């Protein structure tokens, strides 16, 4: 029994097409998560680096003795 409203039931009539649907579903689901994750990782890393630079800049200069 097939439900023709479903793209996979309607269009994916062979194994290769079904595999393509499966891979592309995973691809389109995972890509935005990957992009968001990469963006958040970059922002956090950049913030830490800026904080580190500020800390070094604010540290008192070592005295001679």
């Amino acid at each position, binding site marked *: 029994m097939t439900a023709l409203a479903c793209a996979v039931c309607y269009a994916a009539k*062979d194994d*290769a097409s079904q595999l*393509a649907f499966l891979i*592309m579903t995973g691809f389109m689901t995972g*890509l935005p998560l990957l992009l968001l994750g990469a*963006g958040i990782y970059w*922002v956090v890393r950049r913030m830490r680096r800026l*904080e580190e630079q500020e800390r070094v800049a604010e540290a008192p200069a070592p005295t001679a003795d």
Partner: protein
Amino acid sequence: MSGKVLQLSQKMPAARRRQIAPNGVIGITVFCLTETMFFAGLISAHTLFRMQTTATDGWPPPGQPRLPIEETALNSAALLASGVFLFVAHQRYRAAASTAMRPMLASLFLGAFFVIFQGVEWVALLGEGLTMTSSAHGGFFYLIVGMHAIHAAAGLLVLGWAYLRLRRAELVLSQLLTVEIFWYFVVLLWPILYWRVYL
């Protein structure tokens, strides 16, 4: 009560506002991320169509011309080289801005070569009968490659603008970075499109 709150806020250190990157860099990065999803949708639809067609009729579909794989490989190399020259321009800009002009001009010329060669290729394919309406294969080809060509043409315009500013010694690093991110997006997207559409 309000006096206490005021006292507390006066004691607390003011939160620091850090700019993690120039506004242009953040803006173009968000734009490139949305465009990545746009092209991902096109690639996904094309892949599904191709798998179905290959299973039933073979690829390319009957009556449709074979895409020029070898010529486009050469063209792809020109676009990749354009990206490398822009990277070199960035390195030179950091050392001495005036020395970045030559690699940036080379990047511009190679990018222009890519877009013009794509146009020549399209004329040949139209002559062979591959049009937007000849088949879904043609529709996908012109849509995906055409959208990339529009991005490449826009990239050339901003590269040209950056080059002119560099010549007048008005280009600042944040502007160069903004232009670079967009051009790298155009350059790095192309091999994926070439792999999915041509091979």
